[in-house]
Every structure is written in C-alpha cells, then in structure tokens.
C-alpha cells in the first residue's frame, strides 16, 4: 500500500493546520527535518507511528500526517514500546521534550535503552520547560534563573548522551535544530538503525531560554568529522562528557544487536482472525487435573 512518492510534495505534510509554537521556535526546524527524513527514507506514513508525551516538542506529531499516539507527559517511551511489541512491523518514533524524556520520563529513558527495541527516540532539548512557561528542565544550565529557580539552577545538568552510552545504547547522536540538513541526515541514520537510537536535538526556545539561543548553539557546537570512530564507546563517552565544546553528529553506533522484539519473538497482533490453538488451550486446562 505504498503511496506515490512525488519529488516535491511530502506526504507527511499536514493539510494546513494552526500550529501552537511561537514564531522562531526551533521546533519548526526539527519538524521540517523530521518530515524530510521520513520522506527521504521511503517510509510509508501509514506504517509509521509517532508517539509523544506532553510539552511543546510533544506537539510534533500533531503536525505530521501519520499515525500518532500523543500520550501523557513523560510516557512516550513505554507507549512506543507497547506499539512496537504489538506491531513490530511498524516504524516507531518516540519524540518529546527534555523535560518529558529526562525529567518526568527519566526512568523510561533508562529502561528503554536497556530494552533495545527498534525505536527512534528524538528529544527536543531546549534546556527548559517550554509549555509550562519557563521552569528549569533537567538539562538547564547551572545558574539560569526562572520563576521557580529564582536564585538560578543549582542542579548538575543531566547528560543524556553520557547516560545513554553508559547504559549501552547502540546508537547515540546529537543534532542542532538550527542545522536543518545535518539534522535531517542524522534522523535518517537513526531511522535506518535497527535497535534503539537516541537523538538529542539542541533546540532554541526563543521565549524562555535566553541563554541557549541559535547563536549560543552555533558557537558552542561542532560536528564530528570522519576522523571520529563511531564504534569506539569509550571515546564517545569522553566526547559526551565535554560540556565546553559540544559535539554534533553520531557519537556512537554499534550494529548487530538483536532487538527486544526479536528476542521476544513478537509478531504483529492478529486483528481479524482467531489465532488460538484450541489443542494448546486444552492442554493447559488438562494440566490442572
């Protein structure tokens, strides 16, 4: 049931809808990169599910013409897992903000990585809680003042890449919303990767984060070049720990691990037909005689 792929029209574009983001927000660029990556990856929009939580970032699937599970704040990853376990044949993307994925949903982040289901995890990291109007997020920089952190953020920022790598994530990357093409390319690699892929995307919040602007990101980041060995985990961790010069691109990839759904032998949920083996069932019953 492939839809015709035209050169110009992107089937993931939505028939015009009002969008809830502020003008200039980095989310628009991430959305564009995502739709571009999906289209160029040849994914059928009807076989794609984008799962999100709650927040500005989490509105993304509202603006993509594809299946959507816009769930609870913090709970994108378990819902995405559920989709994958029931329908391993579908392409599953879990997308949300830094607060959603690393704050409320931090535990799921840890354990989703351990599971290694074939899910592409995209985190819009604007280092702030956007939708709730500017409180600190787990990735906010120390010292940033907010209406709650009136004396400035005191907590050590959460380092998603280092944590993902410590947990053995097989694909770990970082992108920057300002760089459309590179971000699209990283998304394409993540979508193509079999297993859990984590992409943290720097995203300017032009309203609530006056520290981490487009300019700040471009001044503090650099792209890993071909000299970087993406199979070297120790090296990747070292890079991820550098909080001065922030590396962009794929930090680490490790091919070939079996996915959780493969190990479980999950198969697409039967819908129409009855698939129960009556004799097996009788055997179970008989075991209670």
């Amino acid at each position, binding site marked *: 049931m492939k839809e015709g792929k035209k050169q110009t029209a992107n089937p993931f574009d939505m028939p015009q809808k009002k969008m809830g983001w502020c003008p200039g927000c980095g989310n628009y660029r991430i959305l564009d990169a995502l739709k571009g990556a999906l289209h160029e990856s040849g994914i059928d929009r009807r076989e794609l599910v984008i799962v999100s939580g709650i927040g500005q970032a989490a509105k993304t699937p509202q603006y993509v013409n594809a299946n*959507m*599970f816009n769930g609870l704040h913090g709970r994108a990853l*378990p819902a995405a897992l559920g989709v994958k376990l*029931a329908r391993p044949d579908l392409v599953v993307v879990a997308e949300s903000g830094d607060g959603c994925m690393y704050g409320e949903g931090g535990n799921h982040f840890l354990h989703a990585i351990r599971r290694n289901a074939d899910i592409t995890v995209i985190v819009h990291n604007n280092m702030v809680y956007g939708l709730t109007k500017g409180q600190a997020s787990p990735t906010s920089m120390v010292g940033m003042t907010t209406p709650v952190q009136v004396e400035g953020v005191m907590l050590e920022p959460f380092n998603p890449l280092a944590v993902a790598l410590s947990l053995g994530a097989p694909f770990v990357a970082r992108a920057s919303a300002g760089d459309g093409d590179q971000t699209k390319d990283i998304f394409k690699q993540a979508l193509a990767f079999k297993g859990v892929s984590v992409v943290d995307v720097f995203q300017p919040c032009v309203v609530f984060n006056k520290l981490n602007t487009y300019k700040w990101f471009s001044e503090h980041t650099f792209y890993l070049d071909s000299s970087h060995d993406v199979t070297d985990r120790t090296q990747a961790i070292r890079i991820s720990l550098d909080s001065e010069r922030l590396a962009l691109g794929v930090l680490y990839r490790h091919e070939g691990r079996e996915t959780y759904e493969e190990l479980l032998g999950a198969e697409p949920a039967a819908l129409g037909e009855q698939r129960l083996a009556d004799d097996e069932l009788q055997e179970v019953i008989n075991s209670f005689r």
Partner: protein
Amino acid sequence: MLHQDDISLVFGGAAGQGIQTIADALVTVLKNNGYAVFSCQEFMSRVRGGSNSSQIRITSERRNAYVRKIDLLFVLDAEALDHLRWRIGEGTTIFAEHDQLGEEDRGRVIDTPLKEFAQKAGHPVYTNSVAVGAVLGVLGLGLEEFNDYLSREFESKGEEVVGRNHDAARLGYEFGVKSAREHHIDITLPTAAEDPASLLLDGTSGLGIGALMAGCGVVSSYPMSPSTGLLTFLAARGRRFGIVVDQAEDEIAAVNAALGASYAGARSLVTTSGGGFALMSEGVSLAGVTELPLVIHIGQRPGPATGLPTRTEQGDLNLALHAGHGDFCRVLLAPGTPAQAIKLMQRAFDIAESYQVPVFVLTDQFMLDSVSMLGDEEIVRLPLQRRVVKTGSDYERYRFTDDGISPRGVPGYGEGIVKVDSHEHDESGHLTENFTIRRKMVGKRLQRLGSLEQEAVPPERIGSDDAAALVVCWGSTRGVVEEALDILQDDNIAALHFSQVFPLHTGLGGMLEGKQVIVLENNATGQFADLLHAVTGRQADRRILKATGEPFAVEEVVEALKGGVAS
C-alpha cells in the same frame, strides 16, 4: 478422637519448609481419589522462616471457603504451632516432631518423626513425601494415587528419585496408619462422589486461562503480590500463545505500554495490586480520553501503602472506581470462583474492546491463591470477536456516532491514519480547544454508560427469592457466604453475589426492595455498601466487615448471621 463430616487439614510451617508442596500434592491425590476438596493459603511476607499455613478441606459438597476449625494439624515447628494455636480446638488432632516443641505441648501432640523417615528414605528432602504419606495413612486412604503422583512428578529426575519418594511415602503412610490406630483417630470422610478427572484450579490460573481464551496479546506489568502469579502464568505460556510478556521498569511504564499495544491493535492487560495500581491512575485517565481498550487486573491486599503484602482484603474498590482524573466510563468485574475468573476475564477483554473503556478485574490474595474444584462443563468459552475495522483513507478515530462509540482503527491496517490524543481532541484526534467539540466529546465518552448498565452481569441470587434478608457480597466472598447460608438453613436469609461491581445492573433497586440488606465485605468501611447506597439510594441495614488481613471464615459468617436477620 472423632472427625466426621467435612474435614479440615492444616499444615503449618516456615516459608521454605515445603508445606505448600505438601498441600499441592495432597489436594491432587485426594481429588484423584474422588473427594471434593478445597485448599487455601496464608503466609507471611518473607521468603524463608516465619509461619505459614495451608488448609485442605475434604467436603461433602464442593466448597470455596476458609474454615477456622482444624481436624488434623501438621506443624513443622513450634512457631507454627504458636501461630495456629488460636484455631486449635477440642477436636483438633495435632502431629509434629516432639523435639521441635516445647515441653508443655508434647503431651497434646502426636510425635511424628518426619525427618527421621525422610533420612531413612535417603535424604531430608523427602520429608514432604513422608508427610503426605502420613496424612493418607491417618485418613485411611490408599497410597496408590500418591505413588502415581510421585512417579509423574519426579519422572524427569530418574527412577532412583522416584523410588526414594515412594519409600518415603510408604514410611509416612505406615506411620499414619499406626498412629490412627494407636491414638484412636476415627475419621469418617465424606463420600468420594467426585469425578477424579475434575479440575483443581486456583484463582490465578482461572484468570490466566481466561486471558488465553480472550486472545490477550500483550501483558506489561511490574511484579507485586498477590498479582504476580498472573504474570508468571502468562510468561510460562507466552510463546505458545503468541503473548508478549514484558516486565516493565515500573507500573507507570506498564500501563502506558499496555495502552500503546492496545492502540496498535493487541488485546492488552496489566496485572498489579493496590499500590502499583495507584501509580497507574493517570494511565487509566489516558485510557478514558483516548478510548483505548484495556484490562486491568488488581489483586487486592490490605493497605494503606505497603500494608500487609501477602494478606487479603477487598479494600481497593473505591480506588478502582475513581482512579484517574476527569469523568469517563469504566467497568469493574469481581469473580468469586476460578470458573467465574475464566469467564469474566474473557468478558473483560470483550467489553473493553466493544466499549473502548478500561475494564477492571478485582480479585484478592485469598481468591487468587485458593484452589477449588470444577468440572469441564463449568469452563465457559466466550466467542472471541475482535472489533477493529480496516481504515479508509478518510478515517477519523473519534467520529461522532449515535451510541458514542467510534469504529476503532489501528495503525497500519487500512488506508487511513489513526491519531489518538491525551488532550481533548476533535474527531480526527487532533488537539482542540473548541468548547463545542469539548462538550460533545465529554458526552460521547459518558454516553456508553447507559448500555454498560444494561449489559451488566446481574448479581447471582443464592437461596430463596422470598427471604426477608439479603446478604450482599462481591468477589471472593461468594464461597463463604454460600456455605454459611447452607449451614444456617434459614429460609429467611438469601444472598446476592455481585461479580460485576460497576456499573450495577439496572434492575437492581427492585431486588433490594422490602428486604433487609446486609452487606458483607472484606474491608474496613464497607466500600461496596457505599456504592450500593450511591447507586440505589439504599443504605445497608447492616455491614459485616473484616479488615484484619484474613479472609472471612465460614464459622464467623455463620455466627454473624445467626441471631437471625434483625440487626
């Protein structure tokens, strides 16, 4: 000592001493001998040590209740004797190794050198077989069924092990026969009128079989007593039945994964207990707003908080009724027997899918761990009808319909796309703040309550239509109420057992009219009595409540209902 009519055997010992193994073997052997049997367990929240006990009843009719009285008591240590002392009566014959006991108890107890015999058979590990043999000897039954049982059970371990177990059983048996003679233990067992091919099923396995029959596709859960058994039941059979079993990192993950799976088309299930379920409250609300089918099994145990982890209570009714913020529909079922568990579990999946609502199955530790007898004819298999539609390209998930229920599409099945949303949404599933759509969506979600009421499982009447008093009970207390009524033989008392506790069946008010209403439940405040009042306007005339962590005993229900019906 004379033991007749229904017989209650109790085995007491520390966790890890094998009393559960003894009880499991014995109940099967007795069943295979044609007796009506029932067994239940009570145990402490620890892995080794403490004092636990298993009761096996041999009854003239099939029963499903705990009795306090003990005819034959086998204790493996002094602590167990202390633990059970309050249940020991005139008519209790006690067996134990004397050297386990204090001086003062020895006179009262028949010295039973289990370990010595086990050692004789080759190793202390054979103690359980000695014990079962001894019981069979005391009861005056044959050893054949047990020998067969042992042969089957230890087949894989080789002939030597089987042989030693047989030796152990024989040593115990001979001891039992001798003891009965020497101590004048005179037991008259009820007639062995049951089909030895009957099933012995615990509540957990009943739920598990029901879930298999219902075509459950994904179960995601986090371990918590007493609900974990359903998870392990399904884990053991997952591959064969195409069920994906995921042990979640926490209960929040479990419920959200189950909803993700439901969205994608699988029939999905979570199993938990009160504390774990409390964490799922927000997820229940998500099921409500997204209109996703979900079955939630709550194995109740005494709260608040950690409470008594391995004990029993019916204290989570209010929570299940109201968990989740905002107004939407739900259904609560509460099987009272393993047979009902099989049937209602299927019904739970069916209602969840037909009405696109969360359906709760409420059980408790007593019900889950109790083993009762049933015939194949009691196993009801409901038609398994999936209700997912193939989407057209203009599909909208929340299309307004006459009955408020929209055809349910799933992703990757048809030409359309499927959008579900935790925000208030329009028909296409996109978030909206339009007040008119909001009003209609609220109405849509609540509208189905009417049909759900009409389709509710009506309460089951036990006893005469004309009785002046009605004992109202729900879930696991069915057996104890039924047995108490049988004992009382009072035409003026009947019972209503609810295996669906919400919504209540429409015709209900009439059934209570003119009756004295006595609500019996295993919690501290009478949560079901409150619900009954809220729905029917009828206050219970009397509440019989218990929240100690123990199930009701037949004797105490008889006692409570005796004095007649006036409160």
